[in-house]
């Protein structure tokens, strides 16, 4: 079987959530099928500037074919078009223009996908919201398997996407919440789909002492790993943590590992390490009392799974449906929805070590049951085999709906996506058979 993994950026040094997800999947599926990655020459997800050489490349033994992006993103234009589609009544043409502005607009990539449809059995498209996934899935819908990595943001309410969700051959979801949300906006219950998620390459041996010595960290600490950004909930985390530190006599230190986008408040108990290597990251998480995940918008959160894989409990933002659902299903993490809950839950995890240990053990068991690589690989291969067995007639009934005509595309009949999202059910998904498997 020959598979193409189509993703917006790809590289060993690219650590974005969906991109890393795609790389892990490509590298692990390479054991079961012939894999080629189709991607752009961009390295920066904000500008989509062509920084890598077009043509064939190889990353960790997986062949990669890069295509240039036609034009960099114009932030002003993208902002205006985002306001238009998210906040105002608009047309389908506005949404297509928004998609073009968002990028990475690489017609060469889409043309290659269209032209080489016979070369690959299936195309795995990552990140539904980008140009390559939308146009690529439309070009080869009968061979398209979508890995949406969708978050509960305004983009999911755009009218251009439901036909894609209904028209692809299969969807590999990251979480039950993501599946429920996509099914609510698109009504794609008939499309084969499975909640898979992603594993992680957890080292067999971690040395927290090495991390402590290297960074001069003594005493117990909580850790946050990821981009230090407003969108990741870091401002709220800083506020809540400072309140917690004021109230406790011997509070934990907060260690931050990641590139900062917002200023970090000067505080004796907040330690910023900058970007750290994978080795340091795993050592740091293994040595922490807990991992804090303050993001409101997550499609899965790999670092949360990594903390569980290392037997550490998690304190997550409960306003994120996915994180709250994961905590409830795994029984391996606490969550907070306001400052008082943050302080109390953090205190509980810090002071009640048996509880923290028990949560960590549950996390490890949950990870091994649902996110260990053999489980993930099996879910992918099972799905692909299921698609192979699927009758052609049944597959053809789910052909992707064509775009409406020229006039219809320009009629401003679509409501603002914020309005659409307000009607989509929220909250953690209740899964009756969480223990039995996903």
């Amino acid at each position, binding site marked *: 079987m020959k598979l193409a993994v189509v993703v917006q950026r790809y590289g060993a040094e690219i650590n974005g959530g969906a991109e890393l997800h795609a790389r892990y999947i490509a590298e692990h599926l390479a054991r079961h099928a012939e894999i080629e990655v189709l991607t752009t020459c961009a390295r920066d997800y904000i500008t989509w500037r062509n920084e890598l050489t077009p043509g064939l490349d190889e990353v960790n033994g997986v062949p990669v074919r890069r295509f240039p992006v036609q034009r960099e993103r114009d932030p002003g234009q993208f902002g205006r078009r985002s306001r238009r589609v998210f906040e105002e009544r608009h047309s389908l043409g506005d949404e297509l223009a928004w998609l073009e502005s968002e990028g990475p607009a690489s017609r060469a990539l889409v043309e290659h996908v269209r032209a080489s449809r016979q070369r690959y059995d299936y195309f795995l498209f990552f990140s539904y919201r980008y140009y390559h996934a939308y146009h690529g899935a439309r070009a080869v819908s009968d061979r398209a398997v979508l890995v949406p990595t969708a978050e509960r943001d305004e983009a999911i309410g755009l009218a251009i996407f439901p036909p894609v969700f209904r028209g692809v051959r299969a969807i590999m979801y990251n979480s039950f919440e993501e599946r429920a949300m996509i099914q609510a906006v698109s009504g794609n219950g008939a499309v084969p789909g499975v909640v898979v998620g992603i594993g992680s390459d957890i080292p067999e041996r971690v040395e927290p002492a090495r991390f402590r010595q290297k960074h001069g960290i003594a005493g117990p600490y909580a850790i946050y790993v990821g981009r230090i950004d407003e969108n990741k909930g870091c401002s709220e985390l800083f506020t809540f943590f400072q309140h917690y530190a004021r109230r406790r006599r011997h509070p934990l230190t907060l260690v931050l590992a990641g590139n900062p986008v917002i200023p970090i408040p000067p505080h004796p108990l907040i330690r910023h390490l900058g970007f750290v290597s994978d080795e340091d990251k795993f050592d740091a998480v293994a040595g922490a009392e807990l991992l804090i995940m303050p993001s409101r918008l997550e499609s899965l959160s790999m670092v949360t799974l990594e903390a569980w894989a290392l037997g550490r409990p998690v304190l997550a933002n409960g306003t994120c449906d996915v994180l709250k659902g994961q905590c*409830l299903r795994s*029984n391996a993490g*606490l969550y907070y929805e306001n400052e008082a809950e943050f302080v109390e839950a953090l205190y*509980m995890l810090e002071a*009640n070590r048996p*509880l923290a*240990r*028990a949560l960590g053990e549950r996390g490890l068991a949950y990870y091994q049951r649902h996110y260990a690589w053999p489980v993930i690989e099996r879910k992918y291969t099972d799905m692909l085999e299921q698609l192979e067995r699927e009758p052609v007639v049944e597959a053809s009934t789910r052909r992707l709906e064509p775009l409406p005509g020229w006039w219809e595309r320009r009629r401003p009949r679509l409501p603002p996506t914020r309005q659409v999202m307000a009607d989509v059910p929220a909250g953690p998904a209740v899964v009756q058979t969480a223990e039995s498997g996903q």
Partner: protein
Amino acid sequence: MSDFSIRADSVNVEEIMRRVRARIREKRGVDYTEEEIQELAAVKLEKFLDPQKVRSELLQHFQRTATAPPNFAFEDTTLFESHRGIVRVIRRLLGPILKLFFNPNPLVHALHIQSQLNTRNAQHADLSYELMHNLVVELTRVSIEVKNLKMRVESLSSRLDFDERRARALEGAVQYRPGAVPAEPPSAPEPPVRDEEGEAGAAGATGAAPGRSRRRRRRRGRRGGGGEPVPAGPQAPAETGSMVERAAPSDQAPADTSAAEPAAAGARTGEPGPARAAEGAEGPDEESGPFNQ
């Protein structure tokens, strides 16, 4: 914390979170919930804040005035736009002719900037509202806390006053501790020798300060002209007894013979007597002992 189950297979995060919330409610006690604080901030500010400085309907008023008309996005194509495609095309075709009459570009540019300014102002208004709202809520919370703290300080200060008064009253009372000193044999035939060494030894045995015994003897010695002389012999056992004297200034009494006699009697029988306090508080020069300060 001990009430939480610690077996990994019996951990229930939902239950733990219920307990976390219960603990938060317990800690708050008589404190207010978020909703109550919001309600108080919106309605009952005058109860907690100076009504001359912060108006209770401030937020509603600000919200009312902050609602601006919808902004009009103005782009370079706006002037020529139409919902009818044909009209739009004609306008675009006639654009060069229009430019023969006047240059619309500065107008488009100015209106575009104005549109951006309007957007920015609207965002600032939202931020200001949020800031104002948070400030009022926080101010209310702080005011409630200050009020509670004031009440607590008042309560503590009244308790402190009470304790001080009680301490003073106790200092004035005479306490007898029968087990503090081995009882003197009742048939002590001879009074101890009244030399300095003997006194010191007696004082050491009873725990009474030697200086106090000396002072008392000195007083009695000086009292001769004021009243009936007190015999020195029977007084001596009293000096070695377990009586602890505490004389508050209010307990001061004139030293007369009527007081001196029962004192001597009490000393002899080993029972406490009010006269001992009176005796100990004869004059200001005696109030230097640790119990009389």
